[in-house]
């Protein structure tokens, strides 16, 4: 049973990691808008119809 002294802190560490990841996600604004990203994922799989000269200018990728 003494294995619990190893597994237990380990489990807590994993839990802490999850909480930290969650806090990071909230702080970076991932829960601010829950509707639009669902629509946004449908786009941008192909470049829009535009003159070839402009095509290499990639859209500004900002989050």
């Amino acid at each position, binding site marked *: *049973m003494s294995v*619990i*002294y190893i597994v*237990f802190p380990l489990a*807590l560490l994993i*839990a802490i990691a*999850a*909480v930290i990841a*969650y*806090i990071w996600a*909230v*702080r970076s*604004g991932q*829960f*601010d*808008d*829950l*509707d*639009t990203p669902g*629509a*946004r994922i*449908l*786009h941008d799989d192909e470049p*829009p*119809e*535009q*003159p070839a000269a*402009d095509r290499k200018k990639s*859209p*500004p990728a*900002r989050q």
Partner: protein
Amino acid sequence: MADVICDHCKLPVPSGLIDPAAERQFCCGGCRMVWEAIHGCGLGRFYELKDEFDATEPARTTGEGYESFDHDSFYRAHVFTDGDGLKGIDLYLEGVHCAACVWLVEKLPHVLEGVVESRLDIRRQVARIIWDPDRIALSHIARTLDSFGYPCHPYRGAKTHDLWRIEQRKHLIRIGVAGACAGNVMLMAFALYGGMAGGMEQQYRTLFHWTSLAITLIALIFPGRVFLVGALSSLRTRSMHMDIPVALALTIGTIWGAVVTVRDGGGDVYFESLTAVIFLLLVGRWIQHRQQRAAHDAVELLYSLTPSTARLIESDGTVREVPVEALEIGSAVEVRAGDSIPADGVIAEGSSQFDLSLLTGESRPANIGPGEHVHAGTTNLGSRVVIEVQSTGADTRIGRLMALVEQFARSRPRLVRLADRVAHYFVMVVLLLATITAAAWLWLEPADAVDNAIALLIVTCPCALGLATPLAVVAAIGRAAREGILIKGGEALEQLAAPGLILLDKTGTLTQGAMRLVEYVGDEEIRPLIAAVEAQVSHPIARALVAALAGEGADLPPAAARQVTGSGVIGEAEGRKLIVGSPAFVREKVGPPPDWAKQAERELLDQALTVILIAVDGEYTGVAGLGDPVLQDAAASIGRLRRSGWTVGILSGDHPVVVDAVARQIGIDVERCEGGASPERKAEVVTEALSGNRRVVMVGDGVNDAAALSAASVGIAVHGGAEASLAAADVFLGRPGLAPVVELLRGARRTVGVITRNLGISLLYNVLTASLAMAGLINPLIAAILMPISSLTVVVLSYRSRTFGP
């Protein structure tokens, strides 16, 4: 044959507009323009993304120039600067609704050189645009969005929304941490429950106790601090709040748990219940916060739709559209027919009729000529005038009224919420019971006395009680919003549940707020002639006559007509000469009227109507009475209000004679009506009524009601109301008529019923746990089972109950 479908909006094309030769079919000019604009920008893929069956409404473009968007004062008010010298703005877009709209709006950087980023929040219909001011003008961006069918407005709530977003993130982090703590403590508690049944080595028990204690301390100090801080501040102000019993149970539970852990001898710990309470109550608060925000958001969007530009005449005579903030004292402003006056001033040129109802409640338009004062917020109905600005912004009559609104809002006494009143007794009873338990067990079995008393304090922690009000209110506010009733907070609902005094504004609330033909006496055959003549004139009385005689006279050739300002119209139709106008004017032209016309005139005047005489070829043929008719549902709605115990009164700025006539018509006691009240007087009447310890509800629509709305226990702004009344009111009715008022009061009563039921159920659970604790029968497992069940009952009952709606 299948319907021909519009290539832009996918709605059926009216048969008259189908052009068999054309490749593309459109239901309206707006859709055609938008389709061409979108294809012109190479964004035809929009139509691939757009759902075929998602036909909503035809596109609308305003074709506006948006010149005011480039003005310095517009920048100061709405534009923020990015770190790299870029500019940003939040624009509220009308008409965005689907995934394809998101695509189109976010493709803006590809279409317009100089737009760096464009991101749309589809739920709020707000797009954040970042652009380089050196490469493109904001008005150009706005015109492009408009040409795509999304007319845009600066989003007024940007600052409060940013604050709210920060608050929202804090809520989420607290909930996340509290949830993780509760989950992990619960895992260890399961091991301890196992130990209760099958026995457990002391060393593992110690380990679980210490780890649980550590995690509970984290939960209490970080997310749970909210309750401790809330309890402390309400103790300091000597007011009762639901936070006090919660904080009491949390601190005592944690301290007792720590004592048991350190003593390491036996005794129960309740860490899992404590952490779960923190988590559940935080979730309840967050839901409440979010729902209230939704109502605020909706009101702010309405706000953003109100125009805020003026047409400034430059020294060289050209007219430029500028934001209202840019006006200075002495500026000359052009006000076209139908526009509202942007600032207080004096008419420099022209004369016209003005609708002053927003400011005075007077439904009859007033004639105002050169040299006379006009106030911001009134509407020009007649013809173009030029105004010399005398005061702007906070110095205008409206500005001073808004200062009054804020003053009242600050001084309004806070309502002691139902739940907080319960909390007051709750704390006392729980402390009393704990003392009794300790005393009784000291006598029976001294070793268990402290254990049992403390267990009682912990297990009566009012989790369900704390959730009872927020959940009932949130569910009700959500349902109300679907019915077009926007409620800014739960306090308004509690206030509206018991009857009191309800004061109604007249113009725009009880009536339609526009002139209509109410009665016509005389020769029926000349009615088409009147319509033909009046159709040539744009006076509100003429429009009311034309609207009432709709269709009549439409087949006649256009009549010749001449308008005499403030008097009437002289015209010719079918070779007959008509004079239509005020009694004095027609008398002067035609001579004294016959007896029947005199009598009709007197009768109409008694009903407080505006009288119009009609003479054809020098002979009196008709008498028309115009007024602002009472809404059809008003009498029935007021009857319902009175039956449910409310005292109904009218508080109007309109002439007392008109107010009394309306009151008699819909069955309101004339004693309770006050006419001719200035905006300040309205607020005074409300505060006087409040001082008698009564609940006073004010219903109104205009700027003149704003101060009274803000002073009342609950202010209700009705459909079509002015911006100022939206800001001052607690409730906004999105549907016209008085029926929503009745529905709101009924819904509020039901909501408080649900709150009371929830409180009752949660108290019942507490009676159960308290008696178990007093009998010494409680243990952590029973507490951990009862607590979530009680909360769940409250949740289910709140969402299942019918408050608003059918």
